[in-house]
């Protein structure tokens, strides 16, 4: 599956970039986030609970940051296996400053889901992914654009707030 999208973030490019490099902050916005091992500045192992239709699985992702170029570019590869399922992901982010406190966030991701989740949840996979992406950016924007009101991550992640732009697959 290929996903891509553009978000307008009301924050300076450096703030957005710093946020992206902070694994704890990013993981805190990931829907279903449970815990994380930080193995190095560019190597993390977050554990996420994922539910698609009737299938629930707990993935531990092996995440690597690559080709990071401050303040506007970064790439991520992630690989995770749960019982009978696996996910492989590559994502690329490019930031473009629009104004002193406004940044355009361009991204795309290629995701391969294998096994039970892909089989049982095939018809729900894409729509579920869109929902999760929307939740992620809602949290992301909330934290960046209103840094004073430090909302707990879990609460923000479960928010149903929609982003201004919907990512397109």
């Amino acid at each position, binding site marked *: 599956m290929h996903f891509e999208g553009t978000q307008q973030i009301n924050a300076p490019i450096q703030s957005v970039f710093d946020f992206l490099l902070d694994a704890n902050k990013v993981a805190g916005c990931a829907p279903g986030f449970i815990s994380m091992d930080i193995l190095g500045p560019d190597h993390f192992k977050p554990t996420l609970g994922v539910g698609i239709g009737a299938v629930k699985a*707990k993935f531990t992702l092996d995440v690597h940051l690559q080709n990071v170029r401050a303040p506007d570019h970064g790439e991520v590869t992630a690989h995770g296996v749960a019982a*009978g*399922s*696996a996910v492989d992901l590559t994502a690329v982010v490019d930031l473009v400053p629009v104004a002193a406190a406004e940044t355009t966030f361009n991204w795309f991701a290629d995701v*391969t889901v*294998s096994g039970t989740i*892909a*089989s049982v949840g095939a018809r729900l996979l894409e729509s579920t992914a869109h929902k999760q992406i929307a939740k992620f950016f809602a949290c992301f924007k909330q934290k960046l654009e209103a840094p004073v009101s430090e909302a707990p991550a879990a609460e923000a992640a479960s928010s149903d707030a929609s982003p201004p732009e919907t990512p397109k697959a």
Partner: protein
Amino acid sequence: MTTEAPVTIGGMGHSVKRKEDARFLRGKGHYIDDIKLPGMLYMDIVRSPYAHARIRSIDASKALELPGVLAVITGKDLDAAGLAWMPTLMSDKQMVLPVDRVVYQAQEVAAVIATERYIAADAITLVDVDYEPLPPVIDPFKALEPDAPLVREDREAKTNHIWHWEAGDETRTDEIFQNADVVVKQDLYIPRIHVCSIETCGCVASFDKVEGKLTVYMTTQAPHAIRTVFSLVSGLPEHKIRIVSPDIGGGFGGKVPVYPGYVIASVASIQTGLPIKWIEDRSENLQADSFARDYHISAELAAKSDGTMQALRVKTLADHGAFDAAANPSKFPAGLFSVITGSYQLDAAHVEVDGVYTNKPSGGVAYRCSFRVTEAVHTIERMVDTLAQKLQMDPADLRMKNFIPPEAFPYKSATGWEYDSGNYPAALQKAMAKIDYAGLRREQAEKRARGELMGIGISTFTEIVGAGPSHTFDILGIKMFDSCEIRVHPTGSAIVRIGVQTQGQGHETTFAQIVAEELGLPVENITVEHGDTDTAPYGLGTYASRSTPTAGAATAVAARKIRDKAKKIAAHLLEASPDDLEWVDYKFQVKGAPGRSVTMKDIAFAAYTNFPPDIEAGLEAVDYYDPPNLTFPFGAYICVVDIDRGTGMVKIRRFVAVDDCGNIINPMIVDGQIHGGLTMGMAPALFEAITYDENGNIQQSNLMDYLLPTAMETPVWETDKTVTPSPHHPFGAKGVGESATVGAPPAIANAVVDALSHLGVTHIDIPITPWKVYQILEEHGATEG
């Protein structure tokens, strides 16, 4: 065999109620999962999420920390014992557990042994397998491209091509095509489907360390062949292996192969000395067990302009998945696909099949079908309709014109089969009369004028079953005879042990009826046993509609051996010469003196109490029957469909099935076989298909996505019969287990195409789903609403 047996005997031709139903209807059937042995452990299997990947490592430490988990078995463990691979029944080999590489999604990767089923299920989620994904090849056409990923690195031949097989006369066929008035060509895809029996696969393996004997209770259709394979693979002497196949909740070919779970459980039991139970869940069964069909066919039919069919040319790509694990006879990698000339006289035919590996589970199961006959019948029956459409002839007329005439039997087909007997025009005439074919065509014309979509489809199929003669048929070198052993007890009851294995066919009743007919003993006094290799005579098992043609014949012959001996005892009792006795009304009587007679019950008692000095005591016999030929059941099916222009939904309004399976043992059971078979034939025609995405993820891994027909989808089947006995079978039977599954799909497909033919539609691949039909209607501007 023509004598009508009194009801008290219940021999041939009687609708005796199924003896086995007494336990099934009371919930007293005894299936694998009902078996509970002292100290039994449970096994669950870690499966691959990837269709193709390298295994970097397997870390079982977290699973082993879970209380109740006793062991985690990997491919490396089995490899150390030389058991990481096993032979398939098709002279290929198959991974039991992979050492370093998986080749299809849901492939077995490791097994957990635990004290409880739920602990085992929890533990498989804790086995950490590090995979390196590799590109899979899912499309068999792409698998043959030079740069395609290699599915089987273990093979010497570095190609995904498995084998090439052909039958018929290529030169003669090509000559006819060059000079033909008319040639029709059609590509057909017979999709991958799953047998999806109610009971999934499983086993309880129990190794007795004191006796050194392995007993495996197993869902298998072929226990004896499995025992031999187990002995060859494990090195255990064959007398130290006992395979027991108890009640089986449907087999349909899917329980012929050996699955890795059986082997792993057996290894675990040998290691621990404790019984190990393994039962698949539904999704495992749908994802990983062997599949059927998956044939990509390109067919051409040559004919004269008057409709005389002359030659057939067929090229096929057979998708076998990652292992060629089909249970075809050794010399027939494409099964009996060359029966593809069907019920028709053709001057020549040439058939080619190429087997291909892909990153999918093993294919090639003979799903209620005698080794690729469903694919063959669908092809020829669609091609006949395609020709009829091209020539604007009525498909019934075209069939009548080209049938092998009744007087031509035994008939040598263009691909070399010798058909034993047949009367195809009689079956079609009967079906046409029963359904009022002429009236239906009038109704169709009227409806078409009103814009309504109604279609009439015919299938006049010929089956080929009863494998088979030992000179031609074997599985892994074991000849495909079958067997029966009969012991008549002193009081006139009997036990019959057979080499075949019932999975719902009603053997406990029909085989008792064969003996009842031959010996004149009441059917209720005859017990039939099967499925236990320690007690039953060796046989090749039940599949491919072979039980009645082979073991049924063995039963009749064994009973006749008993009757021969009984005649001598009768002569002793009647103080007459055996030559002066005749077998009349189920007893021996002195010719011309009906009052002087003895029954088999009298003789049985004498066989143990008062036998002549030159005859040994007892009354028993065994027969290993090697059939001289296959049998060729046939039938004429006519289907009427109505199509909803608003939804594309196909509704089967009527379906008349006239079957000819030769002489019938139990009409009620035959009717049941046909009803079930028609429903299982309708399923792939309208609903069922297993598909994969580009990464090799199965898209129908559960019964939400894989639509099995229920009573809601099933129409009222109208059945009838003609009777054309097999001339070479001891009691003229041919077998019926598969006719309906084989014959139904083309009747339905032909009906749908017929309903849409005036729009220019010439073919639709099965399954003909509402979505597919609606798309066609849209293309032709024929939707409504």
